[in-house]
């Protein structure tokens, strides 16, 4: 396979970073893990045969890096890795007061995302949160693209409704 261009990396990097951010819950660790992913990918690019989309291949490398990171940190065991969990990231340098001041609206939205049916949440996390295209998400989730489209649509509708019920005055 031809090496990725700078423009492609500039598009893929934020997607992988956001996935790492969800899994590590910390921007600095997410950056380290994402950088490792790309360095590993560049070094073994010749082994990439193009049978899957580059983002699928990169995603797999990222998951391995995150598992290594889990092991090194001894935070969580690799077996409990929930690939599509919706989590809140906070920088280690974050001002505690700012963390406390997180708006109620943001908390309710995270609750609403976590209350989505698992399969719907996965499609939403992959596309809207992480920023993969529907085609990339379909391959990552092993689903037809139409199913991804329908689940993302459902997620958006449910979240809008949940927020409308929680904050009717903002209508």
């Amino acid at each position, binding site marked *: 396979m031809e090496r990725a261009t700078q423009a492609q*990396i500039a598009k893929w990097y934020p997607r992988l970073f956001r996935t790492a951010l969800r899994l590590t819950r910390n921007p600095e660790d997410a950056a380290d893990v994402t950088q490792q992913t790309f360095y590993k990918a560049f070094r073994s690019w010749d082994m990439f045969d193009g049978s899957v989309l580059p983002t699928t291949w990169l995603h797999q490398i990222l998951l391995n890096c995150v598992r290594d990171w889990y092991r090194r940190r001894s935070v969580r065991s690799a077996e409990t890795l929930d690939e599509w969990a919706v989590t809140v990231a906070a920088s280690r340098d974050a001002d505690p007061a700012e963390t406390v001041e997180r708006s109620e609206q943001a908390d309710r939205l995270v609750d609403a995302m976590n209350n989505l049916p698992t399969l719907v949440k996965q499609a939403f996390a992959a596309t*809207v949160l992480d920023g993969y295209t529907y085609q990339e998400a379909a391959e990552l989730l092993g689903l037809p693209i139409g199913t991804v489209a329908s689940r993302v649509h459902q997620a958006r509708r449910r979240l809008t409704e949940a927020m409308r019920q929680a904050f009717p005055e903002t209508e």
Partner: protein
Amino acid sequence: MMDDDTRLDLEERLHALLCDEPDSDERRALLALVSGDDEARQLLHEMIQAQTQARAACGHDEAARVLRASMGPILSAIRAGGPLPTAGQVAGRGVRVSRRRRRARWALRVAAAIVVLASVSVAVTAVWTGRRIEAKLAEMEQALNMPQVSAAEVDSYRQIWQHVGEGPARSRPWVLLGEGAGRFGYVPTADGAGSGADLLLLRCRMVTATGHILETFNVLVPTGGRTRLSLPDVGRLKGHPIHCEVAAADACATVAVMVGTEPATTAGVKGRVMTGEGPVELGQFRMDGDRVHVVFQAVGLGGSIG
């Protein structure tokens, strides 16, 4: 009202737009659709809002700075095409690493900071994509803001057309109407295949991003066949002459606009406009420091020869 399938399909295309994926044709088609269709615009607005709020709630806004900074070394490694640092140089934080590795990590961070400054345009991330697209849409709306053809205007075109229609037998006239000036001629016989029974008005506006009109001209051509015209000096843009090429058929017209005479400084756009549809942006170019949007509309004035 969109049906479910159309809506899902459009959501997929708009999401690809938010991911910065489509090629320039698809991007232009989507922006044109969104700028002219309230339902599509509302859908895009909802999608951007959902994405922005969901990411903000998950702490992505605070992480954006780290994302940009960490992408720099990766992009610079590709740009340099040289040997890549080892994975150990970017090993997880808090893990015990050797002094050499620590030094390398700091070197990497310093390099990252330098690269970020240099590659700020590349490192603009999708966090800003929504805002950029909304700004782009607002810009397109301004540029495409062309008033409808008034009844008085149509009458005046018909009168002009009647006058020039009294020319040589079986000839097919064309009329150019610019700022306070106009001229007309006849389509070469070989090209004049149609009856010339109907009239097509091609309206052109060259505007800035804020909708300020720099130049405007209209061309009246007969339909009912294929009409090819090469019109030099249809107007002037910042002192440079404008040349217009028209190939009009029944349902559409292909138009090209070129500004300037020197090959080194000539700029232009080319595209197709469909008769009866709203104004479309043919393209943009830079002229003397300003971005110029070229907007065209094809309006069929059926049976106007009278």
